[in-house]
């Protein structure tokens, strides 16, 4: 049972805003201030809440798109100084269903971004500007608009190409629309595409999964996110599982599916560069890499999480609060974590080990030792043991997980976190 000792949400709701978290770190006016180069924007609207999804979204029956966009632009205005005058490298607009935002609002949002931030790197093709799209809501007009606003990558939530499995997930799109959406994006001149797929769906066989992967590859995608179905707490899917409405995939089946994906995608030139992500070399999602490499990013929109100068926080995840509360544009936040050296090392290991590229051990060990004396030797010993067990690959300064190890990344992170702590704590 989780023990919540914090204030009830209603009480702590408006205690802090993102301003306090941002101003706690070096600010835009302090010398040597490192500008933040990534931005995440959360669009919370959906047609329908998919049964597996635990992202914050709502079915917008009251049509609050206009006030939302107004509010979002105010927030972006407040945040923009933290990007300095330096060009943004990555923008990722997720949701919810960003493509559900009507074109007129998109137009305002894109204008604001261009006005508030330096998009030169992105426009020059050296950055990345991704928008998540639902295959049903992609229109030529929207794609055109996005392209003109600097968007150079769409991520399409296909999940499966088989209607039966889509139904299990409570996804109601026509699989054929995925191809259509990608076509529209390409036609509009958006060069990069990614497809999201889900596997280990109850009733799905490894062969079904192979067909889904082939279908995605046949659409010419250079980037695939393949998520093993996770029963997140509080989702309809988890409730249905508890009610015994279906049998979850066996671990053995899931492992086979991992194998299928790895082998098939590698043979087609897409390597696994993260636990659930495959790409042709150079086509990796740069924005997500910023997360996994523990870079800083700004966040806008309800429930969006930010990481700046060692602080982490999350905008309060309710549209009503987001709309009604504004600290000169800054959003009310929750779960604010202050910089902590041990936590930072833990997080670095947690996300770094998910990556094919792994961790740079010299700097990791140096930071670990500074955070907790004696931990460097313990971490090295743990790494040697893991290497002996065949889960960790030590290549000079680089520690990375092997194909077998990457599926054990969490257990290995726990091992290393224990080594970081040391005995008797």
């Amino acid at each position, binding site marked *: 049972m989780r023990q919540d000792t914090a204030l009830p949400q209603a009480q702590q709701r408006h205690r802090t805003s993102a301003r306090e978290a941002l101003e706690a770190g070096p600010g835009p006016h302090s010398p040597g201030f490192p500008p933040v180069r990534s931005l*995440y924007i959360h669009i919370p609207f959906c047609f329908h809440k998919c049964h597996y999804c635990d*992202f914050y979204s709502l079915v917008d029956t009251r049509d609050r798109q206009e006030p939302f966009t107004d509010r979002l632009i105010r927030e972006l205005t407040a945040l923009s100084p933290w990007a300095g005058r330096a060009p943004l490298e990555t923008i990722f607009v997720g949701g919810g269903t960003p493509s559900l935002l009507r074109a007129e609002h998109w137009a305002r949002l894109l204008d604001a971004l261009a006005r508030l931030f330096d998009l030169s790197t992105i426009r020059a093709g050296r950055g990345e500007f991704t928008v998540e799209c639902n295959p049903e809501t992609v229109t030529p007009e929207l794609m055109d608009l996005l392209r003109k606003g600097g968007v150079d990558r769409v991520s399409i939530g296909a999940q499966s190409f088989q209607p039966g499995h889509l139904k299990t997930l409570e996804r109601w799109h026509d699989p054929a629309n995925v191809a259509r959406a990608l076509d529209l994006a390409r036609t509009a001149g958006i060069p990069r595409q990614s497809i999201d797929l889900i596997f280990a769906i109850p009733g799905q066989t490894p062969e079904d999964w192979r067909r889904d992967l082939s279908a995605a590859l046949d659409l010419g995608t250079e980037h695939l996110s393949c*998520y*093993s*179905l*996770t029963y997140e707490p509080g989702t309809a899917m988890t409730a249905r599982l508890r009610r015994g409405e279906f049998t979850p995939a066996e*671990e053995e089946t*899931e*492992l086979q599916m*991992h194998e299928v994906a790895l082998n098939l995608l590698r043979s087609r030139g897409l390597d696994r560069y993260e*636990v*659930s992500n495959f790409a042709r070399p150079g086509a990796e999602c740069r924005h*997500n890499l910023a*997360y*996994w490499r523990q870079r800083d*990013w700004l*966040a806008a929109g309800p*429930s*969006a*999480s*930010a*990481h700046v100068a060692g602080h*982490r926080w*999350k905008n309060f995840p309710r549209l009503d609060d987001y709309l009604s509360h504004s600290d000169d544009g800054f959003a009310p936040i929750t*779960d604010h*974590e202050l910089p902590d050296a041990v*936590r930072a090392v*833990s*997080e670095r290991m*947690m*996300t770094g080990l*998910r990556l094919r590229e792994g961790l740079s051990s010299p700097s990791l060990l140096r930071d670990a030792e500074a955070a907790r004396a004696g931990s460097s030797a313990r971490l090295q010993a743990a790494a040697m*043991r893991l290497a002996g*067990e065949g*889960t960790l690959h030590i290549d000079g300064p680089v520690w990375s997980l092997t194909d*077998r190890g*990457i*599926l*054990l*990344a*969490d*257990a290995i*992170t*726990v*091992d290393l*976190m*224990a080594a970081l*702590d040391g005995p*008797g*704590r």
Partner: protein
Amino acid sequence: MPEPSSNPHALPRQFIRNFSIIAHIDHGKSTLADRLLQATNAVSAREAREQILDSMDIERERGITIKASAVTVFHHHKPGAKTDDLETDYEAPIDDSNPDLHRPAPGRKAAPEDHGDLHMLNFIDTPGHVDFNYEVSRALKACEGAILVVDATQGVQAQTLVNAYLAINENLHIIPVINKIDLPSARTDEVADEIEQTLGFTAEDCLLVSAKTGQGIKELLAAICEKFPAPRTQVVPQLRALIFDAVYDDYRGVIVYARVFDGKLKVGDKIRMMGIGRSFLVTEIGKMNPKPYRLPHGEIGPGETAYIVAAIRSLKDVRIGDTITLEQDPATEALPGYQPPRQMVFCDFYPATSEEGESTDFEDLRDAIEKLSLNDSSFTFAPVHSEALGFGFRCGFLGLLHMDIIQERLEREGGVEIIQTAPTVSYHVLVRGKDTVTGAGGQALRPVDPASPFRTNVPDHFQLLEVHNPADLPDMGHIEEIREPLCRVEIMTPKEYIGDIMKLCLDRRGTYKSQQFISASREMLQFEIPLAEIIYDFFDKMKGLTSGYGTMDYEVISYKPDNLIKLDILINGDPVEALATIVHRDKAEFRGRGLITRLKEQIPKHQFEIPLQAAIGGKVVARETIKAFRKNVLAKCYGGDVSRKRKLLEKQKEGKKRMKAVGSVTIPQEAFMAVLDQGD
């Protein structure tokens, strides 16, 4: 015949009664004690807590009394009367520093004397469980009488008999009391028949009481004064007082409860403990009423009980059963003492980490154990080291309940978190030769105490060693035989369950001894069963089989050789001493299988396959495998997931830190407890 005294603290011994209340658990002993205190006005109804004599939390929760204490009250009784007036009509003289002591209370006409002669009633509470039989018997040694309480709805139970036998052995006068007669389900006549059938008291001997409503209390008080003998006259002029209990008090040190048999004791006397040979200066003598009060004259004489404070620092300086005499004018011969308590059940306590991540270390554990030992001198402890569990203590207990109570008190009062290993009984191992034999830690194994009644049949050129830790068992090649404690077990059960109980006892290597008629519906079975078979879950099984109606009691009667072997448990090929047990050869496979099956449930999957084996001397008798996990990673870990997922992993890390390492396998603390579940 001396004149009755109006000074309660100078009563001739004819007016003193020392007695205990004995009963099966929950038959209402404590409620009756309260009612007696209340009836003699020592406690007002408002003040009376539910069970006033039980002062420790644990006792109150478990509904049992684990520490005897003596309470003195005063009561007026007319010779020959079958019923007495209650003291609620006048003030009880408890504090004679009050000059108005014997003045009738405001609004009362009668003087106390009108109600008869003033009697001093010292009643000595006894614990209510088999593990504490030795405490019962030492309490009884200080008494002349015993009130045997039997529940009118439950009838005679196993412990009723065992306690009655103890009292009979001490030559005590017994007043049988049938309690709870007010309950609609009371079957008073039948219970009276059972008492007659089992103990030979006629229905006329039994007093009918409801401690709850007060019915029969006047008659009981009259019977206490009429029937219980006065203390014997003194046989030597020198002081001889028997220590029947001792408790540790943070402020005053050890408080000794003693019963004076001969001579007098007063404040300022220098006393000597005849057995231990240590001397102390008496600084305070008092009684409990039930709150302690100092005796104003600071003196007690033959037949009385009191508590004594004498700047005694540690319970180790006091031995229950020892005789107190005066340093200046000592008695030559001590009073017959008690058998020292014998530790029959052993287990290890190791420091553990709580779910909240609070770690206990060895020093914390040592402090807690030492502190508790000041309060309870009947458990033993010695440092021990285990590869898997680190440094801890091997502790000896009187029985299983005693073990549970100590563990609970350590955790509750000592604030420590404990891993407890499986309990083992104390074995006697016969080995050839006289050379010192060492145990697992290199320590010399102790020979069985020559004074022990269980040390029999030791041929020349052999030695009999005490082993209570399977790890200490010498190489089987050197062992002539292993002897284990054998119990006489009495089980009282409704007739319809006899077949099931027989089967349970026989499954536990029991030998049938006798079957006794109790009443039309109940019988008592007597078996001899090895203690090792009882210490796991025999009691629970017996309760289960009899739908809760069965009761049992047991007593170790002898040591008996049997085909006993050490069962090793290997995890990933490494033997884990903390999981080893001594079992009967015929049961080794079954026990081993059960154990590793439970371990398999407790030990999480690792990144490699873990074989679990039960083995006897290298021969594997049961095997299980914990498969390796091959996937342990969350599918998504994006910007918004970092904090939550890190916290999740931190929680797993803390869980892992609570585990103990055996080689490269981490084992949850709980797994070491898995062996406690017999599960068959």
